[in-house]
């Protein structure tokens, strides 16, 4: 049985609240204020990109803006800047749309390239752990906080953004929204419309860091040490 002790537990709560148990009929109230929708309200896509770029300084993240045509070159330059030799990338259908499938083939002539492959199972994690750079697309990008939202699936493992020493996020311009409010609303609406929530949604804001030793900021304690965002017009 997958659910244990529920009835007794919940009846106790209801009793303490002085009423019978509620199993249905609870509606979220109209909250008296909704300030989350006011942030960057009415900002144009270009203004949002400016906000994103500026916040990248705060979160120790490199920011590049480029065109679709130039994207393969810019990605390559970033890889070289990290002096990376081994790369792991998501098996995303946008690879084709953005010309990255061909680019990855080309990189493979000099670099150790791995495209996430569900058929080899856990081996993907081992490759990701040893890789110098992981590359994937942002699904929703939050301008206010400089955050990429990664809805992981069988072609886009969580390990790609997490295990390699450096991470590159390719950000299609149209994925940029003001803040987390819009991302949460989208996932909420999907759920209401019967689209299952992904098993992992990860909001990544720059490299991993910690201030646990005498409050000194140290980058790359568990996850990547370097992060670059590439916004594609």
């Amino acid at each position: 049985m997958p659910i244990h002790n529920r009835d007794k537990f919940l009846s106790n709560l209801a009793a303490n609240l002085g009423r019978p148990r509620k199993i249905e009929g609870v509606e979220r109230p109209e909250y008296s204020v909704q300030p989350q929708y006011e942030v960057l309200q009415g900002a144009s896509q270009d203004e949002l990109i400016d906000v994103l770029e500026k916040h990248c300084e705060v979160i120790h993240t490199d920011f590049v803006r480029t065109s679709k045509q130039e994207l393969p070159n810019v990605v390559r330059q970033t890889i070289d800047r990290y002096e990376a030799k081994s790369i792991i990338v998501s098996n995303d259908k946008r690879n084709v749309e953005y010309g990255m499938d061909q680019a990855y083939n080309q990189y493979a002539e000099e670099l150790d390239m791995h495209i996430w492959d569900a058929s080899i199972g856990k081996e993907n994690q081992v490759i990701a752990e040893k890789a110098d750079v992981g590359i994937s697309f942002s699904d929703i990008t939050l301008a206010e906080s400089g955050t990429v939202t990664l809805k992981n699936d069988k072609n886009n493992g969580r390990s790609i953004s997490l295990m390699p020493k450096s991470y590159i996020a390719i950000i299609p311009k149209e994925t940029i929204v003001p803040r987390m409010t819009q991302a949460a609303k989208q996932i909420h609406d999907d759920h209401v419309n019967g689209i299952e929530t992904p098993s992992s949604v990860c909001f990544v804001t720059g490299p991993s860091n910690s201030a646990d030793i005498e409050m000194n900021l140290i980058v790359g304690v568990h996850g990547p040490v370097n992060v670059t965002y590439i916004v594609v017009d």
Partner: protein
Amino acid sequence: MSVKIGDVSYKDRIDKGIENDFMRQAVSSAQGRFRKGRLSQAEELGNWEDWRQLGSEIRTHTLENIDYYLYQLSEQVEKRGGNVFFAQTAEEANEYIENVVKKKQAKKVVKTKSMVTEEIGLNEALEKSGAEVVESDLGEWILQLDEDPPSHIVTPALHKNRQQIRETFADKRGYDKTDSPEELAAFAREQLRHDFLTADVGITGCNFAIAESGAITLVTNEGNAEMVTSLPDTQITVMGMERLVPTWEDMEVLVSLLTRAAVGQKLTSYITAYTGTRLEEEIDGPNDYHLVIVDNGRSKILGTEFQSALHCIRCAACINVCPVYRHVGGHAYNSIYPGPIGAVLTPLLDGYDDHKELPYASSLCAACTEACPVKIPLHEQLIRHREIIVEEEKKSPVSEKIMMKGFAQWASNPAAYKLSTKVARTALKPWTKDEFVENGPGPLKGWTDVRDFPAPGKQSFRAWWNERAKGEKQNANS
């Protein structure tokens, strides 16, 4: 460990805190930084009070309907392939988790930082049953190596300096490099990577569980929660039953309040929302998932005047503004929940017997109430605790009893009262410096050891009042 950390007396804990110069300096500089971060984020938003109002309304609605939302959450987790265990007590929770670990024949468990697992003493329970438990948050890992309890909710090892950390690494793990934070952290990264990859079970706490979809949200800067939830095949989430929100949209608001109020960040580096087991053909994430929902005394708070204490989102904003915490540090509270919220919550969860001093560890300046992003009236709840301790439980601290008894005798004898107020200034002169009494005599000593006590005025209030009344009379007559 349980809510209570040890058996050292309140006074000894305070003395220890006050004598620890490094800790006091670290706490005061951390308080300054966190407080500044929170205020600048609030200023940037410009409508912080609206945000607090919204946070407060979401928490109130959720707690009022907690049975409904926990039911919905459990249904969703089951739908996504997970198991849900409702644990009334710490023992029930530990037993269930131990059984999962035993069934998997797990040798190694990796964990994220989690207050509720500290509260129920999970690590000790698992270690007793033979599994190695590794804390993966850098601060928690340091404390685990050193067998020391946390002293702050957000930065648990705040009380330790880098030399102490270096020594711990050297003694326990053969570390031979310098005490630079970068080198220390690089060493921890290397050690922990190995643990992540070889662990059989991952255990996390829960910042917010989303009832509508069954997602569990974890908020970290290090990314260790991502590691713990991505790599081991078996996952267990332990949540205090109140760590719940109705929908993704509510989660988003509370996460925004949490990261701003805690450390002044718009969002932390990682916010992870994972739901049930991994889907078909997925590689990262668990294939066996368990959610353990813990009561452990929380339900007693429901329906009482303290219900809003359960609104707490563990941001530590109240701790970061508290003048008492600033002086005595986290360990003085003898609870895994320090600071003002700890002083409110600990007696509610663990009774007054061991924690009757805590509601007095407050200046009642209300800075905590003002800082709380979900508007818990902390200082009012502290006053209410004091009333209960004095009136109902008859457990006011001994020092206060003696002082109050003496005060009552003295104040009810007009002649003694009149005489002593008249001579007080002169009598206390040997202990007075710059208009403050230092190291005062008798019952005053307990006070002046930890607080300022202004020297009695040159003129007593009564004398001043009489003169004023005389003056008014003269004015009226003229």
